[in-house]
């Protein structure tokens, strides 16, 4: 269950919520529809599960619609997803036809609901062609891209661009991802929900239970990296950093991830990780189910240092989660990690396993600095990467696109 504005006020302060209420004043009763392709699972559904109720609580008339399709449709959109992230994929004609047909059918079912809405937010490529079925649409239509499109596979992007350039605006997570379009390109980084199972405060027994479950010694320092087993996350480099650092100080490592079942590459990387770990008693390689949110939360809280040594990263929400738990993060100097790891303040940006090992040793030796960084880390997330900031920017965007001017909107 998502939290209420009052519950979030207890975390971020009344003034932040007051700010949201003031922004929402100009949007009272506006009909807002969000459209994506799944009600559960995945980052987009996670966002909509809190965004829709909070927009309603602020006085907007907000709803969430999910388009449905068959296997051909999902095969096509999975290929799109991979292509947007830079993989070369082939797109047979029948997949494209199935994709467009599915969108036409869903457009008929959604009909007036979308046509009469004041704002329609279309999330990711799955429902992107819906726009073309509504030539008489009343409101503003915004395409929200949640994917890292910094290096898309061009032929697929060229096709998709044809579906999205007609929108009134688009939203991107980072400036690096924003592709040129004939409409305003809004930049809204993602956020975390401090009341979700992955981020809520835990009782000490909950953390202890997870320590016991995985045989983690509470008396020795722990570094944790939570991420898919993917070469871009450099899990083998993390093991190397652990080995270098643990030669000087007692240390344990948890590498926890999941979701490798539908990803043959993931299975292979996991094998390489296990080989690199070589049954070391202090390296814990954990395959977690997708709903292991409390376990992830507990592991991050049990950690002394959170690591995200990616060599390529979109935004890096696991970094945000670690910082929120008051842990300094040693992160790869790439993508959205740079927005969050403020060198020497909330953690360290590194380029090599050696660099990571050096910073781990430094932090374990200077416990006072580790704690100080942890406090700053939490503050950074409190002010910049919680869902209240995300919601504020959504409201600001809605106000902005209803005005002609690009510079200044006086309400």
């Amino acid at each position, binding site marked *: 269950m998502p939290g209420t504005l009052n519950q979030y006020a207890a975390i971020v302060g009344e003034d932040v919520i007051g700010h949201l209420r003031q922004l929402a004043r100009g949007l009272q009763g506006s009909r807002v529809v969000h459209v994506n392709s799944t009600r559960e699972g995945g980052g987009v559904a996670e966002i909509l599960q809190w965004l829709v109720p909070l927009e309603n609580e602020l006085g907007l008339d907000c709803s969430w619609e999910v388009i449905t399709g068959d296997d051909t449709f999902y095969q096509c959109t999975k290929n799109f997803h991979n292509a947007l992230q830079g993989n070369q994929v082939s797109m047979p004609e029948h997949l494209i036809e199935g994709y467009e047909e599915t969108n036409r059918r869903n457009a008929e079912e959604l009909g007036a609901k979308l046509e009469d809405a004041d704002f329609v937010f279309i999330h990711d490529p799955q429902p992107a062609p819906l726009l073309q079925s509504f030539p008489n649409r009343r409101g503003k239509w915004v395409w929200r891209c949640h994917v890292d499109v910094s290096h898309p596979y061009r032929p697929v992007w060229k096709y998709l661009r044809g579906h999205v350039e007609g929108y009134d605006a688009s939203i991107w997570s980072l400036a690096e991802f924003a592709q040129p379009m004939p409409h305003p390109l809004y930049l809204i980084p993602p956020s975390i929900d401090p009341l979700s199972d992955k981020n809520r405060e835990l009782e000490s027994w909950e953390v202890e239970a997870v320590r016991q479950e995985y045989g983690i010694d509470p008396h020795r320092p722990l570094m944790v990296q939570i991420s898919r087993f993917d070469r871009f996350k450099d899990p083998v480099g993390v093991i190397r950093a652990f080995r270098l650092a643990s030669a000087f100080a007692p240390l344990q490592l948890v590498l926890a991830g999941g979701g490798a079942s539908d990803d043959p590459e993931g299975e292979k990387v996991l094998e390489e990780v296990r080989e690199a770990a070589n049954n070391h008693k202090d390296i814990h390689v954990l395959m977690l189910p997708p709903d292991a949110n409390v376990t992830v939360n507990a592991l991050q809280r049990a950690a002394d240092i959170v690591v995200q040594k990616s060599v390529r990263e979109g935004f890096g929400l696991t970094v945000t989660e670690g910082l929120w738990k008051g842990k300094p993060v040693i992160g790869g100097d790439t993508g959205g990690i740079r927005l969050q790891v403020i060198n020497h303040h909330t953690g360290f940006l590194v380029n090599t396993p050696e660099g990571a090992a050096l910073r781990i040793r430094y932090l374990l030796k200077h416990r006072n600095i580790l704690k100080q960084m942890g406090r700053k880390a939490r503050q950074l997330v409190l002010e910049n990467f919680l869902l209240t900031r995300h919601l504020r920017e959504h409201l600001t965007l809605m*106000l*902005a696109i209803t005005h002609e001017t690009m*510079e200044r909107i006086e309400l």
Partner: protein
Amino acid sequence: MLCDHYRKGGEMPEAFTVKDCALIALGTGERAQNLRELRDRLLRVHSGCIYHHFWGGLLKPRFEEPEFQNDFAAWVYHGLRDAGLAERMALIDPGEFSEIEDLRRELVEVIEERLSESEFVPWARIDQQFYFIRSQIVVFDTDLRPQDPESLHLLIPKLSVGSVFYHFIDARRRTSSKRDDFSEWLLGLGESCLPLVEGLAKIDPYFSSLSELRTEIAQVFAQCTEQKGG
């Protein structure tokens, strides 16, 4: 009492309208990977980009003193690894330029000078390009209406950083005098408010965070109160 002159006139002055603002960033699709590209893009990007990369940092996460006060200097240092140019660019104070176009010209001039003295054009890694961003500002009323400087003084510590940005930073590009909103309002109250206005004019907004600025503004009000004997 901070300023008493206006009261002697007998007329109730117009209250100060406290506003707040929210900024939202916009991508432009413009990027630079080397110094010459930076110069070329600077010549053609929207003036809002120049403003954003000088002042937008105030609304970004920062701790203690940032290494560089503007995004261009930071990128030249971290992306192009040109410490000398970064220092020269960091020294450019946007407050010294009444028009954004003058600021643009100064930036280009500093880069041109560097290009003319170096034997090669420095490049950044592919994942360290400079992305030009601009912002839209949405301004809204807070319903707060301090009637006199004393009421404003009491209110200042409680102002949001958005209000501080709007009244103390954004005002400089809105008002013909290029002053902050507090000073504009105080000047309308009469000459006795001049010490307060002069105090506010001494605050250098470029080297402080918004919360530090709020403290500095409150201090100026407090000092004037003391000088007036409370």
